[in-house]
């Protein structure tokens, strides 16, 4: 998909809460030996998807150097909304000073809700309906105790402000693509606390099929080959999947390494691939072409091609994702349960 007028990212931000739970601590608890990631991020007692979104949004506004009241859309993609009914987007928009002349909504498409929000923002800006539009992918991801997801379900997010391409653009969009089928690999019904999943079904017919479909679709549409990208970001539910899918599609580990934050952060669900893109923008140089693909269960993938511009170098100062990843405090399993509200006073 291509826009009528050129669109780019004018500001971005990513955030990870301070606390970490190591895989060894989960293994100690359950007598297991898994380690799909080294450790995962855990929220503080007073953090949730909204506070994470606000942290990301504030950074994005700072880097964009714009008047936040000009932001005409704030969309939060998440599967851990603090309220079942009441938008997260309104709180974020209010907190950053974007209200009241603004459109907001919460997006749900499992782990690709954030990139679905990006597609919408790109459409709004590309059509000229909005000057600035903000898309956020953030989660305080749920994983049932002792479930395979408990190793990885983590907290964090990233925000992107889109605007018409100009000298202020840090990376402009070349094209995007969406690939969706009805594939029920992972779901959480209303009022249930934890998602359920189809075990190995989550891999081959879900993650791999859709990421591969979206990647091939966008490469075909643009005529690019994997070697024409400096970097690539694939949705990262664990360290193994993105490496496997990258290799199978002809991308190298060197291309995905800068954006591969899952090992230290865990799977931030809707925040996952947006955070990978943020980590990549933190190291990319003007002219670098970046490939990005999300994956959301249910299932679908959004693929994007961004190319960095000169403004990236100038704008990306200040706190960055690596700083948030390095700033950490490990907690034990009981503290983790308390922070996640799984035991209450």
């Amino acid at each position, binding site marked *: 998909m291509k826009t009528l007028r050129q669109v780019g990212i004018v500001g971005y931000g990513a955030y990870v809460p301070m606390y970490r739970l190591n895989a060894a601590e989960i293994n100690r608890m359950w007598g*297991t*030996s898994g380690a799909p990631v080294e450790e995962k991020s855990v929220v503080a007692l007073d953090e949730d998807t909204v506070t994470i979104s606000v942290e990301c949004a504030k950074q994005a506004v700072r880097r964009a150097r714009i008047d936040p009241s000009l932001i005409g859309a704030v969309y939060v993609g998440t599967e851990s909304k603090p309220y079942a009914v009441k938008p997260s987007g309104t709180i974020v928009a209010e907190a950053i000073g974007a209200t009241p002349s603004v459109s907001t909504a919460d997006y749900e498409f499992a782990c690709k809700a954030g990139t679905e929000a990006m597609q919408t923002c790109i459409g709004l800006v590309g059509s000229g309906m909005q000057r600035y539009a903000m898309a956020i992918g953030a989660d305080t991801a749920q994983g049932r105790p002792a479930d395979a997801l408990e190793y990885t379900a983590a907290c964090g997010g990233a925000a992107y402000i889109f605007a018409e391409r100009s000298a202020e653009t840090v990376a402009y969009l070349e094209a995007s693509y969406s690939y969706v089928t009805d594939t029920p690999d992972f779901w959480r019904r209303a009022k249930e606390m934890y998602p359920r999943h*189809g*075990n190995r079904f989550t891999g*081959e*017919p879900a993650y791999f099929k859709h990421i591969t479909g979206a990647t091939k679709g966008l490469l075909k549409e643009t005529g690019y080959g994997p070697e024409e990208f400096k970097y690539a970001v694939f949705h990262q539910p664990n360290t193994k999947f993105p490496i496997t899918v990258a290799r199978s599609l002809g991308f190298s580990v060197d291309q995905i390494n800068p954006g591969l934050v899952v090992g230290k952060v865990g799977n931030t669900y809707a925040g996952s691939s947006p955070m990978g893109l943020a980590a990549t923008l933190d190291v990319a140089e003007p002219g670098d072409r970046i490939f990005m693909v999300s994956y959301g269960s249910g299932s679908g993938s959004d693929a994007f091609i961004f190319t960095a511009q000169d403004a990236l170098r100038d704008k990306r100062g200040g706190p960055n994702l690596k700083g948030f990843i390095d700033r950490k405090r490990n907690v034990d399993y009981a503290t983790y349960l308390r922070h996640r509200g799984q035991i209450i006073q």
Partner: protein
Amino acid sequence: MRRVAVAGVGLIPVKEYWDRSLQSLFAEAALKALKDAGTDKVDSVYVANMSGSFMQDQINMGALVTDSLGRPGLPAVRVEAGAASGGVAFHEAVKAVASGYSECVLVGGAEKMSDVLPEAATTALVMSEEQEYTAYTGVTQAGLSAMLHRLYLDLYAEPAQVGMMAVKGHDHSVGCKHAQYPFRMSIDRAMDSPMEADPIHMMECSGVGDGAAAMVLVPAADSGVEVVGSAVATDCCSLAIRRDPLIFESVRRAAEKAYSMAGVKPDDIDLAEVHDDFTINGILSLEALGLAGWGEATKLVAGNATDKDGKIPTNTFGGLKARGHPLGATGLYQVAEVALQLRGAAGDHQVPGAEVGLAQSMGGMASVSAVNILRRFGV
């Protein structure tokens, strides 16, 4: 009784067929077998399936598969005997030809385990045990096997010696196109894997897979592979009331009868495909078949005796652990593999000069077993 021959063999790779139906797997293997046999004159069909009524909510498999083959009208029946379904279905098909009732029988097995979550697969396995006495306790098939495994370790062997059953299976599976896990696995990897049911490690258990295998049986002529022994036997269902739980009496009885029919002794067997759903069950099967002395099967799998050029090549395509264990189809994979060996069509897995081969499968904790012995014609 008439002599019976295997005229056609069809296998599909054991794997997870997320986008396929149970009947399409059966049909693919069946059509391959019919093509291999060069006939479409099938007059009856036997379908082995263990858990379709639970995993797919599907019964009446006989009509379903004849329909999916485009052959409605044929007599067809599902054979269910737990994980021995394939071996027992083959036995029934042999009887149909031997009796003169049928001239050309298609016998196939199919199972599709990937349709259910692992918890349901575990439930499906233990449905082979007596619900009122054993299964209701919540024990799993791994748990029951673990009791035997524990007793065996107390009496005869070290954990790693039993674990070699899985290591050998994986060794033999390398390069096998229809195997689910065709890679080598070290004994350390097996022993370092998590406990499934102490003392059984995860890598000593067969996995979850989908598959289908089929064969065409006809009256024996003067070439090909002949079925020279085929027997089924049962045992009391509960391990607790068996005289010696380490003796798989049903395997021993079925083997005794099959050996007698074939006019062979265990020493005459050139290769064996045995039921190693858990390593210990493979070990105990080797002993009950008389291929190893009581308490001595680990000595057999420790060296190269079970390799393709060893004394008694065993699980030459990987066995249940590495080729895969799609429940009701498994017994037919085993017999088909023996047939391929005797045809000299086993490729890199070929046992040199193989003339007589045996396939053994069991349901429940060997409360039912089938032993089928095949011989290359003219030997």
